[in-house]
C-alpha cells in the first residue's frame, strides 16, 4: 500500500489513529514520548542543562566549598587580566593555523595521490588510517619518545637525510609545531578517507571532456578536482578549526603547556583554572568565551552547508 509516500510524514501510526478517538490520540503521543524519553532525559541532564548552567556559573564564585555566590563580572575581569589568557588564545590560534597548513594539505595530497593509484590502494588507505585508530594517549606517549632529542626516532630519521637534530618539544619555538605534526599524524587518515570518497564521486566524464580540450594534468586538478571538492573541503575546514580550538590531550600529556607556556591552549587554561586553582567560575567564563567562538564557527558552517546544498 501507499507506494511512494515513504518519505512523507504520514506514518502508519498516524493513519491508524486518524480514525481513532481522542484517547487513541493521547495514547499515540504517550507512546511517542515514551520512546523519546531516554534521549530527552539525558540531553536535558548532560547537554541542555549544563549549557545554561555554564552561562550562570560564569557570573558566580564557584569553588565547590562555599555555596555559589553572584559576583557579577569578576570572573571575566580575572581572566581578562591574566596574561596567560591571551597567550592561550594566541597559542590555540597558532595550533589551528599550523593545523590547517598540515592537517588540511596533507590529507588532500594523499587522497588525490591514492585515488590515482591502481595498485595497493587498500594498503595505502589502511596504512594512513592506522594512527587514527590508536588511542590518543598511545600516540601521545609514543611521540613523546619519538621526539626525545637524543634517543628519539625523529632526530635519528632527520640524521639519515643529513638534517641536524631539532629540539622538538624542548623549545618554545618548535613545541607547538611538534604537537601539530603529532596531531596531523593521528588524524590525517580520517580526513583523507572523506576526501577519497569525494574524489570517487567526481564523474569521469568531466575529466574526459577536459582532456579532449587539451587541459594539462595540473589544469584538470585546478579546474575540475578542486571545484568539485570545494564543498567537502570547506566542511572539513570548519570542522577542523572547531576541533583544533579544543586541543587538550596533546599539550596536557606532552608538555603541560610548556615550555614556558608555549603550548598552553585555551582548554588547558580552562582545566587549570578549574581543576588546579579550584576556580570553577572563572573556568566557566573561559568556557563561555570558547563556546561563543565555536557557535560563530558553527553558524558559518551551517550557512555554508546551506549555500552549497542549493
Amino acid at each position, binding site marked *: 500500500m501507499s507506494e511512494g509516500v515513504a518519505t512523507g510524514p504520514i506514518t502508519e501510526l498516524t493513519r491508524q489513529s486518524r480514525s481513532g478517538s481522542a484517547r487513541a490520540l493521547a495514547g499515540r503521543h504517550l507512546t511517542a514520548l515514551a520512546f523519546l524519553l531516554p534521549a530527552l532525559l539525558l540531553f536535558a541532564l548532560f547537554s541542555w542543562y549544563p549549557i545554561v548552567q555554564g552561562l550562570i556559573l560564569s557570573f558566580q564564585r564557584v569553588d565547590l566549598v562555599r555555596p555559589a555566590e553572584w559576583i557579577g563580572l569578576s570572573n571575566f575581569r*580575572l581572566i581578562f*587580566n*591574566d596574561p596567560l589568557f591571551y597567550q592561550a588564545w594566541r597559542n590555540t590560534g597558532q595550533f589551528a593555523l599550523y593545523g590547517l597548513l598540515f592537517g588540511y594539505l596533507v590529507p588532500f595530497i594523499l587522497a588525490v595521490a591514492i585515488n590515482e593509484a591502481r595498485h595497493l590502494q587498500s594498503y595505502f588507505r589502511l596504512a594512513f588510517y592506522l594512527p587514527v585508530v590508536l588511542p590518543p594517549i598511545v600516540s601521545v606517549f609514543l611521540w613523546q619518545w619519538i621526539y626525545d632529542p*637524543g634517543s628519539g626516532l625523529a632526530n635519528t630519521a632527520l640524521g639519515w637525510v643529513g638534517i641536524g637534530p631539532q629540539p622538538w618539544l*624542548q623549545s618554545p619555538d618548535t613545541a607547538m609545531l611538534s604537537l601539530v605534526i603529532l596531531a596531523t599524524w593521528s588524524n590525517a587518515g580520517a580526513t583523507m578517507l572523506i576526501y577519497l570518497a569525494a574524489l570517487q564521486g567526481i564523474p569521469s566524464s568531466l575529466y574526459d571532456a577536459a582532456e579532449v580540450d587539451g587541459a594539462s594534468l595540473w589544469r584538470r586538478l585546478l579546474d575540475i578536482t578542486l571545484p568539485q571538492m570545494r564543498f567537502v573541503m570547506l566542511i572539513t575546514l570548519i570542522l577542523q578549526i572547531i576541533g583544533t580550538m579544543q586541543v587538550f590531550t596533546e599539550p596536557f600529556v606532552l608538555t603541560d603547556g610548556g615550555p*614556558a607556556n608555549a603550548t598552553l591552549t585555551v582548554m588547558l587554561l580552562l582545566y587549570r583554572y578549574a581543576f*588546579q586553582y579550584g576556580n570553577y567560575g572563572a573556568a566557566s567564563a573561559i568556557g563561555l568565551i570558547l563556546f561563543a567562538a565555536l557557535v560563530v564557527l558553527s553558524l558559518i558552517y551551517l550557512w555554508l552547508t546551506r549555500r552549497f546544498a542549493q
Partner: protein
Amino acid sequence: MRDDRSYPFGNRLSASRTPLSRRKVLGYGAGLGMAAAIAPSLRPGPARAQDAPVTITVNNAPPENQPEAGAVFEQTIARYEEAHPNVTVEASQDTWDPQTFPARLAAGTLSDAFIAAYTEPQGIISRGQAANVTSYLEQWPYFSSFTPEALAIVRDAAGQLYGFTGGGYLLGLMYNRAHFEEVGLNPDQPPTTWDELRTAAQTLTTNGRFGFVETSSNNQGGWHFTAWMYSAGGELISEEGGRYTAIFNNDTGVQVLQYLKDLRYTDGTMPERQLLDQNDTRQLMATGQVSMSIQAADALPYVRETFADADITQFGLGILPQNGGNATLTGGSVWMFNPNSPPEVLAPAVDFSLFREFDLQNLEASLQADQERGALIGWPQLPIFTGDFQAQRQEIFARYANAPIENYRPFVDGAAGLALRAEPPIETQQLYAAIDAAVQAILTDESADPRALLDQAAQQFQTQVLDPING
C-alpha cells in the same frame, strides 16, 4: 612502597608525580616513648559500638607496578584487620597529585584517609575540607612524641589538629659515585657549593652523559627553584599585615635562573631534553644518563623499586649545594581525613593511618618482609618524632638496614649544619606552577632573560593569586 616500612614516611607519595614526592628524608628520630613495641591502637573516639562492622577507605597504596611492595602493604592491612575484626580496610593506589588533588578534594571523591603534600594542609583547613581529628590523635600513646613541626603543619589557629605528618624530607644532591670515580672526582666529597657543582658538572659531562639535570614541570621547577633560593638566602613571598607580595623576582631569583642557564647553555652540562619532573630525573639517574640531580632521599628506594637494572650502590647523597644561604628546603606528607566521613569511620581511619605509618610491630614485620624481597632499607629520613619512640624506630630500622649507608654520609653530616626551611606558606602549588614557566624558558630558550621571566611570573602570581587573597 609507600607506607611505612622502609621509608617510614608517606612514601608512596614519593613515587608519584608530585612534588610531594619530595618529601621524605633523613632518618633519625627522636622520640618519646613509651615502651611498647606493641603500640596499642587508638581507642576510637567517643563511645560507639566497638564492634559494629565498618569499612574505611584509604589511599596511597603502592602503585600496581610495585606488586611486591603492594603485597607487604596487604599484610599491614591484614594485621590491622585481624586486630580489629570489625574493620574492613579498602586501599586505593590513588595518591596525591598536584594536577588533580584540588578537584578531587572539592568533588568529595577522596577516601576517608588521604595523603597530601606539605603545601596543602593550611589551605585545606582554612576551607573546611578536612575533619578535625584532635580528639582521636590525642589518644594515641605516642602523640606527644611528634616533633612540634610535624604537628604545626596540620594545626589551625585555634590549636585544633586536622591530621598528622606521615613523613618528612629535605632536598639534597643525588649523584652517581661510579661516574665520579670514572672522571677522577672523589665520590666521598660531592660538591657542596654552586661553584663546585658547576665545575663537577663540567667534568662529568663526558662519554655521552650529562653532569646535571633539573626538574621544570609538574610544579617541580618552582619547588626546586625555591630550594635554590634558600641555598642563596633568598625569599619568595613577603607578608606584611596579612597582605602577601610576590618578591621572587629579586636579585637572588635572577641569580638562580642565571646559574641554571649557565649550566644548560654556557657549559652544556644539562641534557637537551627538559620539561622533566622528578620521576624523569630519577629515571635519567637510574639509567646512567646523568650524573647528578637534586632529589630527596626517597629517590633511592624509588630507583630500587622501579628500575630493576639499576645498581643502587652506585648512588650517593650530598647536601643541596650552597651559595651563602646555608639552608635547604624541607617538606613532607600529611595524612588528613575526609570531613564527610562519620565519626564511626573517622576513628578507625585515623587509627589505621597511624598504624600503617608508625606501629612498631607492624614496622618490624614490614621491614622484615621488605628485606626479604630486597627492598632498600636504611636510607636517610627526616625524623618526625623525638625521644624514646624515635629511638625505638631507629633501632628497628637499623636492624634491617641493607642500604650502603656510607654513601649517604655527606648528606647526613652536611645537613646537620643547614637550616631547614619550610615551603612558602600561601597557595604554594600555584606559586610553583607560575615559576615552572620561567624555569622552563631558561632551560629551553638560549636567549631567555632571567629577570624578565621572573618579573612576568611574579606579576602573574600577584594579580591572579595573591591580590584576590589580599582582597
